[in-house]
């Protein structure tokens, strides 16, 4: 069983659960809190900025008023300043220039707007000046437009009317050039941070906390607050925080207020980034707390997670060990909690399982013994002829290792197609034992005969096996049956042959006796008569004919003796025979033939081969016949191998050649008398028949295995000494 991925392990799940449960509530609360605080802070900043901007506007107004008031008060000390001495006028003007920082220049103008006295901080001014801007004598203090000096400083002219108090009429004008920088810098700055600036009625920047902006003539009309000022929107109409991108493209919170008497406006802008610093601090704080909390919770979760989950993990690990087959494993868990009780129950279950498994194993072993001991192959076959199980016997026969997906006819049958007839398909749905089917299969190079029986099963599911096939190896039985048939056939032939031989032997003996007698009598007559030459010739011819008769009779006798040997009717003189020695003698007899045919002879004769009881002459004849057959079957350069060995109570002689072999259809007839594959006149067809007869007479066995084109193997089994007698 594979190990679980980490995220599926209970330990990590507990840990993650702990983390989520500790962080999520805090996070949710934090987000809600931050959102509310953000909104509140924006509103608070807006209120604060509104208050500040109103205050600054008021302050600017008051500062200018204060300067003007100071000037008015100073000039009001004189009944008519224009009528004072020049020295006195200059003293007044210089005093004001000194006292009021914002004054850049002052000019005392008479009724005709000509300067009668002038002072300046920076310039040396000519006395004569007619201010063309003043068309009329001002009746009350007037503020001129804001303008900028060459060096960029904003200035404003203020025209203060001067009165002749005695005559209660306008006597002149005091023209005051005010430097706005000083005035604006004197105002109270924005308390909540940010910056403020002042614009005139045209939206020109005339004052800024950062005076460089004024010197650079920065265009601020893109600021929404300035636009509202220019559109004469009342600040009271703006209730929600004013958030916009200002002239330098920074997102700001803005507020504005008009400077009442001057038609100017003051704007406060606070970059959102700076304004929201408390929020960011809150976020950082929250993150820091969450971080701290997370580390703590991780620690605690690890501790408790391990504590809680260790027994469960032990149980899981133990389960895997038991599942792998180790039923001796018992899981050790301390404590008396639910998990401990579960483990105890699990251990009990394991013990029970072990006991039942052992019983099951015993039963299985017993069943295996029964199934294997029956010597029958068994296979379970699915509906599609796929093998689903095979017993050990069957696997052993067919050398099966993996049967998965193999078809029964491929493994157990004779080819790649369904067996004809297929017992399973034929008997589909029939639970009765089907008929038999015999197959011959080459197993490990050996031809085997199997009898198949198929039984239909009642599978509980379509995937379960549908048939049970019983397979029986009937090769031995088949061979036995063939041997019995052969023996019976040869016995019948032998009986017939011996009968014929006996019946023919007597007339042959008579013919031979009379022929001998005639020869002897003619020989005597020829010696006695000594007659004419012609007569002598005739007698000789007759004797020659009679000799031919006796020769042919002898030959017939030889055949009849052979027949009697085959039918084991000959008389035998048994004596101890050393087969190895006999074989070597026979090899010597045939040495010329082997050399002539260039045949390689290999001998492997067991040194301590038991002595057998037998007839050396007959046994030599057997060996002779078999070896001659091998020589005849071999082409030049062939090979004959002779082996002797003891095999239980038998002595085995094996003669094998790699000659032309015997066709399968002839194998059943090779021991039949007069059966030969040699050309007419070259063999009598009695060689192997005689061998069979001799060996059978010695209670031995002779077997011939041969395959056309590959060679022939002859095995002779003879009882070791003391274990046989002549039949």
């Amino acid at each position, binding site marked *: 069983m594979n190990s679980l991925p980490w995220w599926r392990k209970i330990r990590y799940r507990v840990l993650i659960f702990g983390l989520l449960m500790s962080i999520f509530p805090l996070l949710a609360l934090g987000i809600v809190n931050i959102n509310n605080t953000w909104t509140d802070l924006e509103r608070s900043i807006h209120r604060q900025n509104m208050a500040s901007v109103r205050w600054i506007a008021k302050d600017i107004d008051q500062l200018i008023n204060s300067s003007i008031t100071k000037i008015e008060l100073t000039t009001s000390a004189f009944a008519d300043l224009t009528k004072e001495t020049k020295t006195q006028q200059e003293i007044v003007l*210089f005093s004001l220039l000194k006292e009021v920082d914002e004054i850049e220049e002052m000019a005392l103008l008479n009724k005709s707007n000509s300067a009668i006295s002038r002072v300046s*901080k*920076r310039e*040396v001014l000519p006395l004569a000046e007619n201010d063309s801007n003043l068309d009329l004598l001002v009746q009350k203090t007037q503020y001129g437009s804001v303008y900028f000096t060459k060096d*960029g400083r904003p200035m404003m002219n203020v025209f203060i009317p001067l009165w002749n108090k005695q005559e209660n009429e306008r006597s002149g004008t005091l023209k005051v050039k005010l430097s706005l920088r000083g005035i604006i810098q004197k105002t109270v700055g924005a308390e909540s941070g940010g910056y403020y600036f002042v614009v005139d009625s045209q939206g020109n920047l005339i004052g800024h906390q950062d*005076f460089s902006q004024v010197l650079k003539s920065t265009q601020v009309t893109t600021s929404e607050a300035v636009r509202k000022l220019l559109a004469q929107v009342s600040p009271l109409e703006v209730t929600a925080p004013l958030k916009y991108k200002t002239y330098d493209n920074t997102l700001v919170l803005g507020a504005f207020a008009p400077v009442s008497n001057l038609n100017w406006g003051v704007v406060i802008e606070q970059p959102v980034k700076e304004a929201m610093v*408390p929020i960011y601090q809150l976020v950082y704080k929250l993150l820091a707390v969450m971080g701290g909390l997370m580390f703590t919770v991780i620690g605690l979760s690890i*501790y408790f997670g391990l504590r809680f989950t260790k027994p469960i993990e032990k149980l899981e690990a133990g389960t895997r060990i038991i599942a792998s087959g180790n039923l001796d494993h018992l899981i050790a868990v301390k404590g*008396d909690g639910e998990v401990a009780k579960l483990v105890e129950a699990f251990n009990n279950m394991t013990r029970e399982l072990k006991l039942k498994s052992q019983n099951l194993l015993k039963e299985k072993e017993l069943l295996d013994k029964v199934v294997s001991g029956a010597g029958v192959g068994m296979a379970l076959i699915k509906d599609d002829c796929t093998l689903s199980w095979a017993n050990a016997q069957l696997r052993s026969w067919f050398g099966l290792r993996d049967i998965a997906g193999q078809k029964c006819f491929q493994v157990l049958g004779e080819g790649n197609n369904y067996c004809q007839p297929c017992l399973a398909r034929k008997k589909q749905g029939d639970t009765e034992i089907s008929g038999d089917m015999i197959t011959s299969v080459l197993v490990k190079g050996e031809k085997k005969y199997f009898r198949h029986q198929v039984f239909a099963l009642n599978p509980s599911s379509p995937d379960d096996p549908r048939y049970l096939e019983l397979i029986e190896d009937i090769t031995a039985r088949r061979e036995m049956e063939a041997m019995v048939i052969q023996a019976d056939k040869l016995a019948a032939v032998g009986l017939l042959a011996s009968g014929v031989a006996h019946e023919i032997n007597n007339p042959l003996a008579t013919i031979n006796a009379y022929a001998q007698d005639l020869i002897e009598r003619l020989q005597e007559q020829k010696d006695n008569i000594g007659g004419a030459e012609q007569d002598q010739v005739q007698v000789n011819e007759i004797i020659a004919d009679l000799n031919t008769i006796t020769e042919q009779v002898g030959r017939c006798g030889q055949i009849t003796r052979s027949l009697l040997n085959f039918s084991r009717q000959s008389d035998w003189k048994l004596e101890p025979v050393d087969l190895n020695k006999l074989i070597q003698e026979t090899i010597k007899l045939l040495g010329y033939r082997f050399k002539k045919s260039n045949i390689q002879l290999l001998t492997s004769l067991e040194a301590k081969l038991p002595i057998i009881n037998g007839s050396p002459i007959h046994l030599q004849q057997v060996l002779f016949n078999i070896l001659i057959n091998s020589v005849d079957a071999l082409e030049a350069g062939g090979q004959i191998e002779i082996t002797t060995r003891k095999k239980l109570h038998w002595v085995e002689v094996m003669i094998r050649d790699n000659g032309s072999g015997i066709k399968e259809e002839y194998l059943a007839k090779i021991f039949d008398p007069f059966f030969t594959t040699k050309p007419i006149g070259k063999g009598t067809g009695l060689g192997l028949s005689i061998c069979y007869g001799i060996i059978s007479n010695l209670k031995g066995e002779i077997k011939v295995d041969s395959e056309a084109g590959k060679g022939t193997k002859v095995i002779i089994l003879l009882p070791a000494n003391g274990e046989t007698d002549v039949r």
Partner: protein
Amino acid sequence: MIFLSNNRKLFTSLIAVVFGALIILVAFLLTNWWYQPQREAGPVKTVGVLLAGDMKLNKLAGLKEGLEEQGYLSGVNINYVVQNAKNNGKILNPLASELIAKRPDVLVALGGVEADALRDILTLEQKEIPIVLAGVASTVKRGLVDNLQEHESNITGIDNYHTQLAGKRLELLTKLLPDTRRVLVIYDPEVIPGLQSLDIIENTAALLDIELIKYPVVAKDLIMTELPQVLANQEVEAILLSSSYFLEAAADELFQLSLDFKVPVMAVNEHEAYRGAFAAYGVSLYEQGRQAAPLIAKIFLGQHPSQIPLELSDKIELVVNMDVIKRLGLQVSPVGLSYARAISEGTSLGKGKIK
């Protein structure tokens, strides 16, 4: 026994839970305590200051005061590297080089010659460090910037307007001493402010019908050697000083001659009035330094000097030394006095100022 064992386990578990809760609480409190919003201090800034002599120390005092108002505390978040030439003009350039080698965030020139030295060395070494002028006369004419408002250089600061005030000084001299008709103008012909001042003074003199005696001084020694003869021979009624580094350095000698020859001196800086001039009209050194501080702060905040227009000094003041008037036995006009701030030897220069 089992009962006892179970109770012990329960107790252990409870202890563990309580302990865990305590850890959470402590962790919460610790993180809360640890994270206190603080003003972002930022990296410590370094200001390299070059001054020609001790007479400029008031500018440095004003500069420090101004930067303190901007939130830069010496030794906390700002360090000053000061190179003082001690009135030895020859070592100004090597001192400027040493100062630049220390790679300060901003270079501050406390006068025109200092500005020239810093600019020249930066150009020579092909380095780019912002220069802030803490009160320099004739910034455009001497080629430090092309224009006060719009310029492309890495120089910004305060133009003290002292050159342009040269005519105004002559006018105020006549306002204080209306009978004055013959004035000796001492100027440095080798510096731009000296020549520019002379032009303005000549124009004003013509306007006011004042006779000028021009006396160019190219070396401090000449003041002690030649000037007494000039004063003795030329019937000078008053002396008008123009902006000059070495005239400031030779102030003590000049004022001694003023007393010796009973000739009042109209000077440039408030500081000179304290040291013996009859009167001075200009912006105090202290105020010049103080006014430069916000511009340095802007550079600290990331602005390039070319984005910061040069500013003119604001607080121009006429200072009259009553002790000198008494010693010289002068009759001073109330017109002039009405505009002046009277000082005497016992008068304090104010916070941070150095006499």
